[in-house]
């Protein structure tokens, strides 16, 4: 009876999903409603969760509800706390949801909506959610240890150290590219710059409030903070129009980049309660609120998708990022489909809070499906815009020129029509001087969100408010990530330097703190600055580097998962992790080699360097360089990017070699060789009786 019911319900879901996917894929000509994409996604998630996650839990991993989790074994009420699954789900989702799933799909929209939708769905179901789930499983079986630790104990000390250095390199690139997204959104925008700047005094006020006035009252201070933020957004409009303050808050990209570095340094060396922690409250709650608002907005407004299903840019000639659909689509949409960074979260706090192993599918697999849905919504927000607007906003100045007339002419050549007046009018509606060449994802998403949310509340009159609300929410949580990430990198660097100079390891020491923080900020600041002055917009070269790094980390986590399955003597199920790992390796290694050796100067770093070297030899100076010194710097940057790409390739290929070695060794043994915390006291008979009584 129960089986029949399940079969009927999921049969219906399967049919509905198949119909929606058919509409999405086969529809030509007239635009389709975004609701089809939402329905298709939800059906795919439901089926994947009900069948594949259950299969992974039962057959592949063999979850054991009787085996005590770290939270149960070490319950101390502080770090290890058995937490109700709904509560933990919310915590885990808030920790994995960041700017990545919002930015990647927006950039990938240049190839049309279909490739992005398919990769987000297939990637999440077969790779991303599998990775999150198995890492959570492995860490839970090992007292909540970190990914780097697990690589060391299961694969050996050398791959362990290599993986840790890899994580540091990835962090640096992530911080740089996220900071670049904010700079791109705020450059020449007094309204946006003012509201984001206003978050600093607001956060400091909140910090003092929770420290001295009403200690620990996070709820009320967050409400006050949100009210102040809304006032800052409204006030920003007046500031931007002011003849004195307007120009004062109109900053160039380079000024903003330097300000961000100074700010990132200060924010991460001062006590966390003053600025970092209170802004974290604001950004976390605003993030969840904005995601919910977007979901509700899409369902109420039911906007139509304007972007074609597939554009000609799948051949790699697109203006937003260079490179063909394979491998670059799978690099560009990282978070949302599969994100290596989640492996760090799933082996962080979450396993220490897990009540029971049988909740691993919900927390690990389920939360990733939600993240994937966020990516789907971001893709919808970008594709409901007129494609002409999308390309005018995301193409670099070098391609579309610096005014509305040249931009309209450029996008007309690609077959998308808009008048210069319409472009200028849209900029006025959202309260900006110009919306041209604002690559980076955030402004496009903000226009898309303003388009959807103003359809629910306020109409055109509120467009500017919603636009700046969206910019603020993205900037706020990116800045929180940048500051918190700078601190994390600082601790990693102090740890590494401590190998040579033991004094550096003391995290309380002021010298160690300042030196390591300055090094961290210098590292991401370097990539940020080169990104800002890049004539192709920076995102063009930095985002693929970030994508490659993030997907490689995912490959490392999935290789570890495969090794662990072999060592558990469950190798006949190892395809569940091995297949996505191999796919990610194919994509990232191909993309890495293309970034190094591709003859097109827009893709290959070395080809780009050679072009500048040849020009120098001929005595010419190429833009953006103005002097021979600039030319040298461009070439040095290309070599730095090349070295970094080669470093990523080295990290992942070494881990592959060690991973294959560990699997072969495990095959030879006829005993499981996995290094788990022993299940010393499985639940006793009395517990069992309790279990039965509860059920």
């Amino acid at each position, binding site marked *: 009876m129960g089986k029949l019911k399940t079969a009927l319900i999921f049969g219906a879901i399967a049919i509905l999903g198949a119909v929606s996917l058919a509409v999405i894929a086969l529809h030509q000509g007239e635009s389709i409603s975004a609701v089809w994409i939402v329905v298709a996604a939800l059906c795919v998630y439901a089926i994947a969760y009900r069948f594949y996650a259950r299969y992974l839990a039962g057959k592949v991993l063999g979850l054991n509800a009787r085996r005590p989790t770290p939270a149960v074994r070490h*319950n*101390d*009420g*502080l*770090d290890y*706390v058995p*937490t*109700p699954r*709904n*509560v*933990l789900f*919310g*915590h885990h989702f*808030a*920790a*994995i*949801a*960041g*700017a*990545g799933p919002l930015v990647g799909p927006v950039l990938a929209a240049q190839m049309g909506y279909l490739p992005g939708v398919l990769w987000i769905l297939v990637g999440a179901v077969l790779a991303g959610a599998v990775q999150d789930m198995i890492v959570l499983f492995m860490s839970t079986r090992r007292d909540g240890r*970190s990914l780097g630790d697990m690589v060391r104990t299961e694969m050996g000390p050398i791959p362990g150290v290599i993986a840790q250095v890899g994580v540091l390199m990835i962090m640096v690139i*992530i911080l740089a590219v*996220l900071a670049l997204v904010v700079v791109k959104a705020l450059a020449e925008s007094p309204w946006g710059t003012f509201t984001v700047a206003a978050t600093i005094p607001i956060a400091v006020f909140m910090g003092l409030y*929770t420290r001295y006035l009403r*200690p*620990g009252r*996070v*709820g009320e201070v967050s409400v006050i903070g949100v009210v102040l933020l809304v006032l800052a957004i409204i006030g920003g409009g007046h500031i931007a129009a002011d003849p004195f303050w307007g120009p004062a808050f109109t900053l160039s990209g380079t000024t903003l980049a330097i300000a961000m570095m100074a700010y990132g340094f200060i924010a991460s060396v001062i006590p*966390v*309660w003053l600025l*970092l*922690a209170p802004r*974290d*409250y604001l950004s*976390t*709650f605003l993030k*969840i609120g904005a995601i919910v608002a977007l979901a509700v907005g899409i369902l109420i407004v039911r906007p139509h998708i304007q972007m074609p299903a597939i554009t000609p840019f799948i051949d790699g000639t697109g203006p937003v990022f260079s490179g063909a659909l394979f491998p670059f689509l799978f690099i560009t949409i*990282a*978070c949302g489909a599969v*994100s290596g*960074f*989640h492996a*760090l*979260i799933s082996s*962080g*706090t979450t396993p220490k*809070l897990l009540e029971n192993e049988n909740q691993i599918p919900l927390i690990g697999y389920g939360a990733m499906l939600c993240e994937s849905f966020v990516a789907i919504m971001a893709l919808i927000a970008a594709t409901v815009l007129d494609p002409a607007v999308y390309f005018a906003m995301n193409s670099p100045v070098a391609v579309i020129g610096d005014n509305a007339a040249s931009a309209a002419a450029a996008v007309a050549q690609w077959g998308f029509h808009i008048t210069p007046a319409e472009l200028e009018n849209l900029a006025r509606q959202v309260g900006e001087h110009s919306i041209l060449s604002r690559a980076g994802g955030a402004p496009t998403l903000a226009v898309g969100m303003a388009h959807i949310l103003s359809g629910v509340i306020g109409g055109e009159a509120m467009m500017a408010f919603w636009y700046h609300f969206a910019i603020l929410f993205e900037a706020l949580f990116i800045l*929180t*990530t940048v500051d*918190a*990430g700078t*601190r*994390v990198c600082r*601790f990693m660097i102090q740890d590494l330097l401590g190998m040579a100079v033991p004094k550096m390891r003391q*995290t309380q020491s002021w010298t160690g703190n300042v030196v390591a923080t300055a090094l961290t900020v210098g590292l991401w600041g370097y990539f940020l600055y080169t990104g800002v002055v890049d004539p192709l917009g920076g995102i063009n070269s930095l985002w693929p580097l*970030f994508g490659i790094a*993030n997907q490689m980390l995912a490959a490392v986590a999935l290789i570890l998962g495969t090794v662990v399955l072999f060592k558990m003597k469950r190798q006949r199920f190892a395809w569940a992790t091995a297949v996505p790992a191999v796919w990610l390796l194919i994509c990232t290694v191909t993309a890495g080699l293309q970034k190094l050796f591709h003859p097109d100067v827009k893709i290959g770093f070395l080809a780009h360097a050679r072009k500048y070297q040849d020009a120098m030899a001929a005595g010419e100076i190429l833009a953006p360089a103005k002097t021979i010194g600039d030319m040298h710097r461009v070439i040095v940057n290309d070599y730095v990017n090349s070295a970094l790409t080669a470093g990523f390739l080295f990290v992942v290929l070494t881990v592959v070699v060690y991973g294959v070695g560990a699997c072969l060794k495990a095959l030879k043994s006829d005993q499981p060789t996995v290094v788990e915390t022993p299940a010393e006291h499985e639940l006793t008979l009395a517990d069992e009786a309790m279990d039965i009584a509860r059920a």
Partner: protein
Amino acid sequence: MPRPSSSSATTGGADLLCACRDTLVRWGKDARRTAGLMIGQPDYDAYVAHAAVTHPDQAPLDRTAFFRLHEARRFGEGGGFRCC
């Protein structure tokens, strides 16, 4: 689950109201707990209950000390990992 047929309609209604209220209160509590954990603050009441069972001889941390401890940990060494 079917209720005994002897219970009158009024008590059934009151029971339902009670059940609804309990559910709402539980949801509210869960929502507060989730929001707290999202910013790195676990449930204080759960901690006090736990401390009373395991260390009845020691006074538990007060709310402020508990708050500050977790605030420092979230951004301290080994903490603060956040997704991109």
